[in-house]
C-alpha cells in the first residue's frame, strides 16, 4: 500500500452526502421546519412574542435533556433527572427563605448546584461502583427525591427572592412596555450551555472518552481511560444540568410546586431520542437536543393555541415518543449500513 493511496482524499459534499448526513444525524431540524409550516396555519403561532415564549418554555426541558444526553451517550439512563429538577430549587429556596433567612440569594444558587452535584454523585457511585443497573438505581432515587420535595413543600413555595427568579424570568433588550417582548435570559443561558457542551463533547479528551465508553466500554478501558470516573462525572453533570433547569423553571413560573417536573422524564426521553441520541450509547449530537426540546415545546404550544383537551395531549405526546423511538431505530440502522 503506498502512502499516496493512504492519504485521505478531501471530503466530498455532494447533495447525497448532505442528505445522508441530515437523515442520519440531524433529522430533528427538517422535522422542526415541517412543524413550523404546520404552525403557520395556527393563528398566533408565528407571532414574535409566541415564538419567544416557545423558546423560553423549552429552556427547562432542554437543560434536563442535555443531562440525559450525557448519560445516554455512555450507554446508561438517568430517570431521576425530573426529581433533581425539583429538589434542587426546593432546597435552595428553603435555605434562603426559611432555614437561614437574611442570607444572600447567591446561597440559594450555590445550594442548588451542590444538590445537583450530590445527587449525581450518589447515582453514579451506586450504579458505577456497585455495578447496579442505572435505570433501576435512578428509578429509586427519582421516587426518593420526589418524596423529599412533597414532604418539604406540600403546598409549594411562592413569592421568591428576585435574585433567584432573575435567571429564569428576566428579559433583556426591551424597556418598559417593550420588555414584554424582550429576550429572556434563560434562552441565552441555555444556548451558552449547548455551545459549551458541544465543545466539551467534540473538542476535549473527556468528550471523546464519553463517546468511546458508549461505543465500546471494554476497549476504552483497555486503552487506559478511567471508565468509572468518566461515567460518574456524566451522572454528576446530568443532575447538575437538571438543577440549572429547575432554576430556570422557578424563575419562569415565579414559584415552586411539589409536582414540578413530575412525569417530565417522558418528554426528556422523547427529546433526547428525537435529538438523535442512541439508546445503545455512543451516538448523539448536542445540537439535536436543542431542536428536539423546541419541537416538543412547540407541539405543546400549538395544542394550547387551538385548545386541545388534556387527555388528547397525552395521546399526542405518546405518539411523539413512539415516533421518536421508531425514527431513532431507523437512523441507527441507516448509520450501520455502509456509505
Amino acid at each position, binding site marked *: 500500500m503506498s502512502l499516496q493511496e493512504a492519504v*485521505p482524499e478531501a471530503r466530498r459534499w455532494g447533495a447525497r452526502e448532505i442528505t445522508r448526513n441530515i437523515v442520519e444525524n440531524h433529522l430533528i431540524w427538517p422535522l422542526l421546519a415541517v412543524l413550523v409550516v404546520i404552525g403557520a396555519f395556527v393563528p398566533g403561532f408565528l407571532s414574535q412574542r409566541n415564538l419567544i415564549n416557545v423558546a423560553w418554555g423549552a429552556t427547562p426541558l432542554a437543560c434536563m435533556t442535555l443531562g440525559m444526553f450525557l448519560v445516554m451517550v455512555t450507554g446508561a439512563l438517568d430517570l431521576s433527572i425530573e426529581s433533581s429538577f425539583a429538589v434542587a430549587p426546593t432546597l435552595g429556596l428553603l435555605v434562603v427563605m426559611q432555614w437561614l433567612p437574611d442570607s444572600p440569594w447567591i446561597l440559594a444558587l450555590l445550594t442548588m448546584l451542590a444538590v445537583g452535584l450530590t445527587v449525581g454523585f450518589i447515582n453514579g457511585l451506586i450504579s458505577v461502583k456497585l455495578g447496579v443497573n442505572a435505570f433501576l438505581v435512578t428509578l429509586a432515587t427519582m421516587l426518593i427525591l420526589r418524596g423529599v420535595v412533597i414532604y418539604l413543600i406540600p403546598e409549594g413555595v411562592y413569592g421568591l427572592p428576585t435574585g433567584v427568579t432573575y435567571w429564569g424570568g428576566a428579559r433583556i433588550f426591551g424597556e418598559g412596555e417593550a420588555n414584554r417582548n424582550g429576550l429572556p435570559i434563560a434562552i441565552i443561558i441555555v444556548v451558552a450551555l449547548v455551545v459549551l457542551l458541544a465543545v466539551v463533547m467534540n473538542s476535549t479528551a473527556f468528550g*471523546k*472518552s464519553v*463517546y468511546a465508553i458508549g*461505543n465500546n466500554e471494554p*476497549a476504552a478501558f483497555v486503552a*487506559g481511560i478511567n471508565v468509572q470516573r468518566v461515567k460518574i462525572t456524566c451522572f454528576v453533570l446530568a443532575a447538575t444540568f437538571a438543577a440549572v433547569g429547575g432554576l430556570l423553571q422557578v424563575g419562569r413560573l415565579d414559584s415552586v410546586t411539589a409536582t414540578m417536573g413530575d412525569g417530565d422524564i417522558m418528554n426528556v426521553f422523547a427529546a433526547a431520542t428525537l435529538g438523535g441520541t442512541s439508546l445503545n450509547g*455512543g*451516538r448523539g449530537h448536542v445540537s439535536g437536543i436543542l431542536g428536539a426540546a423546541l419541537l416538543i415545546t412547540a407541539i405543546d404550544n400549538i395544542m394550547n393555541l387551538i385548545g386541545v383537551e388534556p387527555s388528547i395531549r397525552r395521546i399526542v405526546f405518546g405518539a411523539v415518543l413512539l415516533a421518536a423511538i421508531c425514527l431513532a431505530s431507523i437512523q441507527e440502522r441507516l448509520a450501520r449500513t455502509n*456509505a
Partner: protein
Amino acid sequence: MGAGSEPRAAFRTEKLTKRFSGQTAVDEVDLTINAGEVHGIIGRNGAGKTVLVSMMAGVLPPTSGTLVVGEFRGGAGSYSPGTAHSLGVTIIPQEPEFALEMSVIDNLFLGVPLKKGPVLAHAKMREVAAAALDAVGVQLDPRTKIALCTLEEQQLLALAKALFIEDAKVILLDEITASLSAARKQQILDLMRVEAEQNGRAFVLISHRISEVITVCDRVSVLRDGKRIATVPSAETTAAELAQLIVGDDVHAPVLDETMEFGDRVLQVEGLSKAGAFEDVAFSLRRGEVLGLAGLDGSGKDEVVNALYGLVRADRGNVTVNGKTARVKSPGMARKLGVAYVPKKREELAVVHGMSVQDNILLPVYSAISNAVGLINRRRAKELVEARMAVLPFKARSLGVNIDYLSGGNRQRVVINRMALLRPDVFVLHEPTRGVDIASKPDIIATVRNDLRAGSGVILTSESEDELVDMCDRVLVFFRGKCVREFIRGAADFTSGAIYNSLQGVEQ
C-alpha cells in the same frame, strides 16, 4: 473395530478444496474416516484444520470437491448443516451455541423433543438427560440454566447431546480438549474410545497437541498448507516423526541483517505466579529488543501477557518497568508505569466501533495534547496522525470515516498506530497479526522491527512460529505454566521448527 474385518468408511472427502479470495485454505484433500475409529487431524495454525472440519459439518460450502457420507454424495449447494445433521454428522464447536436462559434439559432436547402423544414426555426426558450427563461426567441438576454452566460443561453437554440424544454417527470435535481439565479430558477420551469400539461411531478430533492425538487416536492425518501430507496409524509413529511431518523440511530461519545492540534493561519480571495459569516466570527485556512468548493454548503465555497489562492479576511476583516496581492491577496503572498494549481480541477490546479513524488513533493521547482549558489541539492531532500514517499507512476514505468501514487488516493498523503514539517503555502486543490480511502481515512485522523497537522494549506473541522467528530477537517457550526454554536470534536452533517442537514438548 473387530480384527480382520474390513473397515467401513463413515465419511469421505474427495478433492475437497476451499479458497478465500485467491488464498487456498484447503487444497484437494482426500480423507477417509472409518466407522469405529478416532481420527486425529493435526497441523500448525493456518494449516486448514478448522476450515476442513467446517466443510465436513456443512457449515462452510466448499469451493470444489465432494463429500461422501454413506450413500450420500454431495458438494457445494447440496450439503448444508441440515443435510449433515440428517446424515448423522455433528460438529462440537469450541463455543457451543445454546439457548442460555433455558435449562440443560430443554437445550438437550431442543429440536428433538421426546413426546407422549401431543405433550412432552417430561419424565422420560429427565431420565435420558440424567443418564447422558452421567456418561460425560457432568454433575449438574438437568434443570440448571445453561447460562450457569461453564464453557467446559457446555462443550460436554453438546457432546452428550450428539451421542445420546441425536445418536450421531460422525462427531467432529474442534479443539474441544484445549480447555478441558486433565481429569475431565481423560474421561471424555475414554468415552470416545468406548463409543467408537462398541457403537461404531466415528470421531474426528482436531488438536494442537501431538501428545494427545498420539495417545487417543487410531490414525492421525497431518495437514500442512491446506494439503493432507500423510495419514499414519498412531501405533506406528512417534511424536518426533509427527512433528517432522507437521513442520516439513522448510526450515524457517531469520534473515540476519540487523545488528542487535540493545540499550538499558527496561523490564524485569521476577517470580511472577498465578495459581493454575503460570508459575515462577522470570525474564528481562532491554530497550531495542523484541521478545516473543510461545506456547500452546493453556501454556500460560497469554495470561503472562495479560498480567503485564493488568488485565490478569498475578498472585505473586514483581514487575519492574524502567526502575519502578509495582503490582500491576489495572490497565490505567500499566499505562502510568510505561506499558502500552495491543489486545488479542481486536474487535472487543481495541476498536472503538462507531467512532472515526482519527479518534481511534488518538483516544489515549487526547488528554496529552489538550491545552489548559481542556481543548484538543487540532493541528497537533493532525500532525500526530500523519506522522503515524508515514510509518504504518492504512486505507481509509478520510480520517473522519467510521472505523467500522475499514477492513480487519486496516483496523489493526489503526490500533497499532494508536499504541505506537504512546511511545511507552514497553510494548506488549498480544497476537498483533491475528485476523489480518496477507498484505498487512509483513507491514506489521516491519513496523515491529523498524519502528516500535526503536527506543522501547517489545513483548509479543504469535500463533505462527514463522512470524516469531521473523519478529523476535529472543523467544521464550512456555509449557504447562512454566517458561521452559529460550531461543536466541543468531543461534543455530533459532528456527520455527525447533520452536514448534519445543512448545509441543517434543525434544529432538
